[in-house]
């Protein structure tokens, strides 16, 4: 067997010439490189094998369950919350007003604990609210239609962004009226009989501040709302009045002892917020009351 390479043929195609010469090139990566690569791969493979190979079906099921655990817990918690808040409304039979003993009239339903949080606003429309608040008629029949002003579902959110003025003004007023026991000229038995939690009052206060509704602010404060209560972003009623440019509400709140330095969760003070919004009149009002 001849080990001498075949003669070079210049007429060969370039690829063929390349292949022939390439086959004669004994250059290879070093053994150290080869070992390093294969060793690295073995390490990774062992880790993957441990991760994948050791699993039994029940372990996979358990793993899947653990992965879904937050969703399961969340769903169960939501269901329980809904059950606690909603179910009593339907499960406890309500006797007609006329058939109830005199001593029990004008008493809140016993199934709703006094300390329980109010139902989430989104779960209860104004229509339902109005039904609940409508005065007990002399007979079992109830008004079939609620007041027209209470048709819209209540929005739970408070926003920095200036909403349309009308909506911003209507929303807190509806709440205020309900809270004060005056909804479209009717007395809300529920509002009177079962005082709303302070959190709800504070929320309504903040909405009123954001809308610049001084009457509603007064009503809430009279009902005992905490003037400096914060929302989930750490914003006080004063802060919401500032960011929404409600000069009157700012003055009104400051005059009634609102903390002028109540910073939000991000550490922004009302004065900083006013400066950011370019409202010098609000800034000076804040400074007059000791804002820094």
């Amino acid at each position: 067997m001849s080990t001498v390479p075949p003669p070079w043929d210049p007429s060969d195609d370039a690829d063929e010439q390349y292949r022939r010469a390439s086959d004669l090139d004994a250059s290879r990566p070093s053994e150290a490189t080869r070992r390093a690569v294969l060793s690295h791969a073995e390490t990774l493979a062992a880790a993957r094998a441990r991760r994948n190979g050791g699993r039994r079906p029940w372990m996979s099921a358990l793993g899947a369950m653990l992965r879904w655990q937050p969703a399961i817990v969340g769903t169960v918690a939501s269901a329980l919350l809904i059950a606690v808040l909603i179910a009593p409304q339907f499960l406890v039979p309500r006797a007609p007003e006329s058939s109830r003993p005199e001593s029990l009239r004008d008493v809140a339903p016993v199934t709703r604990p006094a300390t329980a949080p109010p139902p989430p606003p989104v779960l209860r429309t104004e229509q339902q609210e109005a039904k609940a608040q409508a005065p007990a008629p002399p007979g079992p029949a109830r008004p079939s239609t609620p007041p027209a002003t209470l048709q819209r579902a209540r929005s739970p959110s408070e926003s920095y962004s200036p909403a349309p003025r009308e909506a911003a003004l209507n929303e807190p007023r509806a709440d205020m009226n309900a809270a004060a026991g005056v909804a479209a000229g009717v007395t809300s038995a529920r509002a009177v009989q079962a005082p709303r939690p302070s959190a709800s009052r504070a929320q309504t206060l903040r909405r009123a501040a954001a809308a610049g509704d001084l009457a509603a602010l007064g009503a809430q404060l009279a009902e005992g709302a905490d003037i400096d209560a914060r929302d989930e972003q750490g914003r006080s009623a004063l802060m919401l009045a500032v960011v929404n440019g409600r000069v009157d509400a700012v003055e009104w709140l400051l005059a009634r002892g609102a903390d002028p330095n109540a910073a939000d969760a991000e550490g922004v003070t009302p004065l900083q917020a006013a400066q950011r919004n370019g409202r010098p009149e609000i800034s000076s009002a804040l400074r007059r009351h000791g804002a820094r």
Partner: protein
Amino acid sequence: MNDADLSDETLMGRFARGDAGAFAALYRRHELRTWRYLERNVGDRAAAEELMQEVWFAVAREADRYQPTARFTTWLFAIARNRMVDAVRGRRPQVSLDEMGHEAAPVIGRLTADAGAGPLAAAEARDRAQALREALARLPPEQRDALLLQLEGDLSVEEVAAITRASFETVKSRLRYARTRLRELLSEYA
């Protein structure tokens, strides 16, 4: 079934599930082609060794995410080229493709011919391999890169175009010029 009979994609899938032998088979199958692509492009053994490790480390690391939507070799040579370009762009300026274009120094001493072929055959083989290296070194970098991707990576013009982010016509032109020039240079040797 022996590992040697399995496709590259199947071997990658096995490795991703923890089969180190599948990776070893894959490495043996493509080691030389990857090496030649890198070494003939960078013209420096030490730099090629380092790149070789980087490329195959990346292959091993990325096996989990490898999706056999394209051929394994296309993916492999895309990694190889990207690593090489990274090296050229700054991490190792001494292996610049431009610098080693036409005037790259011959790489001597790393061609170890078949010891059993006798001194004459060994010298002949060394000379021819060296001629090829020198011819490749004298090609413009883009032409050499495209040619090596096609000849060592066994890639189509479309695949080379995709990897090098050049148009199909540009790659076709580079390949045509590269082959013409290579033929001329190797003819000179002959």
